[in-house]
């Protein structure tokens, strides 16, 4: 086991897969000579050259479209979009094409394309660079959606994504890039649709998405140490496919659930999980499912406002205490 940063794990996955398969290449804005806005692609241009590490103009919709076209003919493109907000310029190609080509052409072709992008607040990037939009992509049939929260998951899931024959929306997190974590030494592949139980517990199930899986874990520590509440923490790791089994099993044990996400509350990941859990495990529930989510506003720039516009450990602790019927003791 070696300890590496999340950004290094993503870069390693790309390099390993490019080494393994000549059909894998990467393109995006400033990923080559500049080595990526977040330095994820550091060293790749030098190592693999211009043909396989392609700097593009600022043309998101067409970059993704060219990814779709080349993937239809058997290449395995990785398209990097600088932030998830920029994917909004490419939604035509992502939804109308990447997701639907296989279906609308009767299965004659597949689209083995990975679209990578970071999301998240906390860096004062304001209302056009800080959002968390996994819920939006999650709704689209034809796409797979990954939201890794640790270096090991980023490595294992990205390698699987590149090998998958379906289009994958691979959502990284800007605030996680510098985080360290252990990764296995050899080849590390993680299947989609397998959640991780980050911490076992008996009183409440916490489902945290993307960076919020880590926030949920920290909240669970506080809950145990300061409130005597035992929280089980689940990181779904992929939202499509979703490992609902693991979540339902946990809810059957704890009888309570709190979801934690950075995105907006309406039509969010938590809203959908709450619907699924009550559909499938209503009799196991002793309390309403609660959602902790980002504030229902465009992400503000000012630190004072940004801090209260996305969830922190205290918000999760409060929601859990409400769920288990305890008062906040401090």
């Amino acid at each position: 086991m070696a300890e590496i940063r999340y950004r290094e794990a993503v870069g390693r996955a790309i390099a390993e897969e490019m080494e393994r398969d000549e059909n894998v290449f990467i393109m995006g804005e400033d990923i080559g000579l500049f080595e990526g806005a977040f330095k994820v692609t550091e060293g790749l241009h030098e190592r693999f050259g211009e043909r396989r590490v392609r700097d593009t103009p600022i043309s998101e919709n067409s970059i993704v479209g060219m990814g779709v076209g080349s993937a239809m003919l058997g290449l395995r493109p990785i398209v990097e979009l600088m932030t998830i907000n920029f994917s909004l310029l490419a939604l035509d190609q992502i939804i109308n094409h990447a997701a639907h080509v296989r279906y609308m052409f009767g299965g004659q072709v597949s689209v083995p394309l990975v679209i990578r992008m970071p999301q998240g607040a906390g860096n004062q990037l304001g209302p056009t660079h800080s959002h968390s939009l996994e819920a939006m992509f999650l709704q689209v049939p034809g796409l797979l959606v990954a939201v890794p929260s640790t270096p090991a998951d980023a490595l294992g899931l990205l390698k699987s994504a590149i090998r998958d024959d379906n289009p994958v929306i691979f959502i990284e997190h800007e605030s996680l890039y510098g985080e360290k974590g252990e990764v296995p030494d050899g080849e590390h592949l993680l299947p989609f649709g397998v959640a991780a139980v980050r911490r076992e517990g008996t009183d409440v199930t916490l489902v945290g998405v993307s960076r919020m899986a880590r926030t949920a874990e920290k909240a669970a520590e506080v809950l145990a140490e300061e409130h005597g509440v035992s929280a089980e923490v689940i990181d779904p790791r992929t939202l499509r496919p979703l490992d609902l089994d693991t979540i339902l099993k946990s809810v059957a044990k704890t009888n309570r659930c709190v979801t934690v996400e950075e995105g907006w509350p309406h039509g969010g990941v938590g809203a959908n999980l709450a619907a699924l859990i009550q559909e499938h495990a209503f009799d196991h529930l002793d309390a309403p499912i609660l959602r902790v989510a980002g504030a229902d506003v465009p992400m503000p720039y000012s630190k004072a406002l940004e801090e209260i516009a996305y969830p922190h450990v205290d918000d999760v602790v409060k929601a859990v205490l409400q769920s288990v019927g305890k008062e906040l003791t401090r």
Partner: protein
Amino acid sequence: MQSTTQKSVVKLKLMSESDFSEAVPGHPPVGPLPDRAAAREWLELMLRIRRFEERAGEAYTRAKVGGFVHLAIGEEAVVVGAVRAIRDTDWLISTYRSHGHALARGTDPAAVMSELYGKATGTSGGRGGSMHVFDLERRFMGGWGIVGGNIPIGAGFALQSSYRGNDDITLCVLGDGATNQGTFAETLNMAALWKLPIVFLVTNNRYGMGTSIERHSAVTDLVRKGNGLGVEGRRCDGMDVADTQAAVAEAAEICRSEQRPLLVEAMTYRFRGHSMSDPERYRSREQVTKWKEQDPIPAFTKRLEAEGIVTPDEVEEMDEKAIASAHAAAEAADSAPFPEPETLYDNVYSLGGEVRGWLSGTKAPE
């Protein structure tokens, strides 16, 4: 033109806008004729496409076909000229007005018609409809419903050829309306930067849906529009199958040998509305009549008859065959089965029949 592209200016027969507006309509076809057999085949193919589309339009009015149906009647010379200018191994990608491209590539007319009828035997098993005909085996890569959405997809095919170093090119068909989409500017720029082997064929029928080119494009010379993005091009007479074929063949040759993108603007006109549900209030009857006099099929027929390549009897026989082929396609489509309800989720994902969506588990734990 910039000095960097001067080498090929010599090769290209450039036609200025004023040349063209005088030339069409009212200009007899003068493009270089191919050998006898090819000339006859072009005429036969144009007739087959025309009769197929008339039949499709009829099926639409009888509610056998739903949704949108966009007919290319009047534009057959562009379709046939372009497809006959590239190799069978080249990639062809079109728009939502693409029945003719599929037929020209040799797709079974019954499979195309069945797709329009929403039948299981359609090219996309009834999932795509008229706008999304597709035939991978013949490298006819759709059938795309979003205006301009197919442009980067086509460039992706060309990127693949360039990446693998083979000499396939891509012919990417778009309309004049699509040149106003961001993807046109984005993709032509990238294709020029990356020297991608792609020919953009702008089927300029003078209307983006119901908005005339003078009202939808500040620059009406679409070759110039491409030039501004680093892609060289030329115009051709889209009512003349031979002129179109020559222009696209020339562009394809340069594209293949020099590995760079080119654009051909084919000046044409659609005789029917934008789609079957179009009252056509945006253009005059006189204009339509004037262009119909320039119908590419009678014009080419007349020329081949004058050259002694076909006789009127032979043309009539060809036409009867075309009508019979369209009729047979419609009959086959009509009697084919609809897709079975249990196939609704087929091919959402590349995993056999399994759907990976929300539910990996569907039951509450005991």
